[in-house]
């Protein structure tokens, strides 16, 4: 086996390591039907109950100002995405050629684009597209990546080799290039973009999950689970994966930010939405010729992308600290 496979990403390996993992797993173990897992009631490491854990996490997250602001911003974005159509002052896809490239004013607070469409309305409409694509793409990547990673890490041997070599192959091609290739094969459209972005980010999740599982499966309670005769599937999904959950949550949060960025990149290259639908990257791409003439056509969609990506990144960082008992801000 190649040395880099053993190289479990630093931060995540630590979370998955003995104390925290054992705490959580055994705490969960207590909730299982009797007899399946030996329960060590009097063990000192058991004092942190799951509910208390979440509370601790929340406390830590709340202490992290950047993450908190990001969380508020993301909630705000979600609200915009949900109630977007009610908030747009103009129809985001209605052209008004006579009104093209107008700078921001009271009438059009973000100005108008090359076709006279209201940029404010389009940025709002684009929020839904970006967040939906981000979430869906991450869900696809997550569900496939977790299964592949868990199977590879848990069983090891040739299954591991085959899965991880395929993942390595995917990782060896720049993800945006791979996404463009997939789009070329699948055709244009935002649904295809979701699939393309989802598929190309599978390896990241598979790797992280596999890494965590490699260390988790060495724990005694896994051996115990084997002894009491649990099926592999049950061990993986009930006893191993829950311990890798924190790693996965952090990764997924960060993953949304890169998915939003990838969507914008595809849109910028003209592979995203069907015109005249609004999408941030597409708006940016079509406005780039006007950077000197009408900079507002670029600034607002650009800001939307930047702020969204930044918020998900900061939240992801905050979550990572909050989920790691040793890095928690007390």
């Amino acid at each position, binding site marked *: 086996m190649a040395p880099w496979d053993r190289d479990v990403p630093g931060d995540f390996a630590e979370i998955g390591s003995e104390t925290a993992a054992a705490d959580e797993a055994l705490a969960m173990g207590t909730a299982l039907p009797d007899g399946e897992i030996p329960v060590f009631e009097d063990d000192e490491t058991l004092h942190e109950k799951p509910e208390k854990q979440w509370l601790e996490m929340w406390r830590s997250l709340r202490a992290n100002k950047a993450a908190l602001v990001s969380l508020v911003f993301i909630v705000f974005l979600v609200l915009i995405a949900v109630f977007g159509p009610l908030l747009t002052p103009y129809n985001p896809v*209605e052209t008004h050629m006579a009104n093209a490239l107008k700078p921001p004013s009271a009438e059009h607070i973000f100005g108008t684009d090359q076709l006279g469409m209201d940029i404010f309305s389009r940025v709002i409409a684009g929020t839904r597209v970006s967040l939906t694509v981000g979430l869906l793409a991450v869900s696809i990547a997550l569900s496939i990546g977790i299964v592949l990673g868990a199977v590879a890490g848990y069983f090891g041997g040739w299954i591991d080799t085959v899965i991880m070599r395929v993942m390595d192959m995917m990782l060896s091609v720049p993800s945006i290039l791979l996404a463009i290739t997939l789009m070329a094969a699948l055709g244009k459209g935002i649904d295809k973009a979701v699939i393309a972005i989802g598929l190309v980010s599978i390896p990241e999740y598979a790797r992280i999950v596999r890494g965590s599982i490699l260390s988790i499966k060495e724990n005694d309670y896994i051996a115990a689970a084997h002894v009491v005769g649990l099926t592999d599937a049950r061990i993986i999904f009930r006893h191993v994966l829950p311990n890798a959950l924190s790693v996965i949550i952090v990764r997924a949060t960060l993953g949304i930010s890169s998915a939003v960025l990838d969507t914008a990149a595809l849109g910028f290259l003209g592979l995203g939405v069907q015109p005249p639908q609004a999408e941030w990257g597409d708006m940016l791409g*079509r406005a780039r010729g006007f950077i000197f*003439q009408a900079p507002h056509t670029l600034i607002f969609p650009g800001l939307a992308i930047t702020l969204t990506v930044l918020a998900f990144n900061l939240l992801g960082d905050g979550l990572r600290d909050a989920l790691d008992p040793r890095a928690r801000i007390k």
Partner: protein
Amino acid sequence: MRRESRLIALSLVLALVVAALAGCGTKQESTGGEQPATGSEYADTFTFAQGADPRGLDPALVDDGESSKVIVNIYEGLLKYADDSTEVEPCLAESWEVSEDGLTYTFKLRQGVKFHDGTDFNAEAVKFNIDRQLPPKVTEDMGYAGFVFGTVKDVVVVDDYTVKINLTQKNTAFLANLAMSLAAPMVSPKALQDNNNSVMEAPCGTGPYKFVEWNKGENVVLVRNDDYWGEKAKTKNIIFRFIADNSARVLALTNGEVDMIDGIDATVVDQIKNGGCELFEAPGMNVNYMAYNVTSPLFKDVAARKAFSQAIDRQELVQSLYQGYSEVAETILPSFVPGYDPSVKQVAYDPEAAKAGLAKAGIKKVHVIAYSNPRPYNAATGQSLATAVQGYLQKVGVECTIDIFDWTTYKEKVKAGDFDVAFYGWIGDNGDPDNFLNLLSDPDPTMNIARWQDPVYIKGIKDALAMPNGPERNAKYAELEKYAAEQAVWLPISHAKMLAGYRKGVDGFVYHMTGNTFLKNVTVKKAE
């Protein structure tokens, strides 16, 4: 600490200022130093920057504009275009006659003209150049041989300065072809023989400038031909520089590295003007149009096509999309091409009529295809144009789905014909009306993307091609334009202007509608 860093900053600023001042000083000195050499207020070198290297400098073997711009300064043809139109004028041929049957063209050649290698220009040279591009000698890499000389049967040398060209069929556009910068310019037969029938890198013509050197990826250097038969060139050296990046090219102009640039669009106009440079605008020989697929069930009827066209406010669209750097096209022909008739009008904007007409025709959903990139006739990209049209149609209750493709794929899709409406354009070759208007009669769907095959129109085009140049032929083309407009097969949208940027003090260049830059009379005032 703080004080120290301030001191350092201050001294750095001082150093910069001193350096800047010193820089200005030396610059002035150096220009001043050259002054006595020529004793004139004009510089002896003019630098033109374009986007790419020429593909080569053999007029028979290239088909691109970047080559063409250099070629027209080294070579000349039998005929040339007027400076401000595509009317043909004498050049190496002093006069010509066309036989009654329109099949024989006799040219009287200018005497005393020499190629740059010292050999004489005469009837033999003309025959050599044309024969080279006729079967059996013509080769596959002669991109324009078929276009320019496709109807030539043979070339007969009558005497040293008279040459007769026989055609296989009547083709009045042949004269315009002879003025083109591709295929038609005369190359020294000796140079061709010495260079294995390709002067791609050793050009030798009769033009006002001689070739000096070509540093690939960097520049082509030309020097004045002091034995030129006509008025000699005004500036001694011409340098064509190649700067691929658009903004870098604009920067090279504004900081004085080059005297003139082309290959620019409306987005950099402000930058050029703010940089203290001038903008040259001229009508371009092109048309940007929307075509209906007449084989589509939606648009087989002229009424449906008209209704769709009526929904589009071209005036507003062209103004917003091209910001004044394209003109609304009422005709397929640009205004300077013979046959242009200002009384021809396309379907006028009338949203109410459009709504009624489209409803009557039962049109609700239209499949539109467009290209993703800017084109010379459409700097705003096909996508923006299509989206704008989509916006207009939305207002009259028709939904357009747009499929966008990159240019190469797009051409395939156009050929395949799976669309109701498509966007395309045409860049003229020879300035003859036939070159634009025969597109709609062409059986090839890559040329005639509307797939319109109207016997009346096809016959008209054939007749007009055979008519001798003159008002009668022009009237025929005007009539054909009118017919095409009534049938609403295309909706001509705009003619893009040609733009070039140049420094103050540059004068005398001819930036022709064919995209060529004739630099014989260019002068550059020295910087103060």
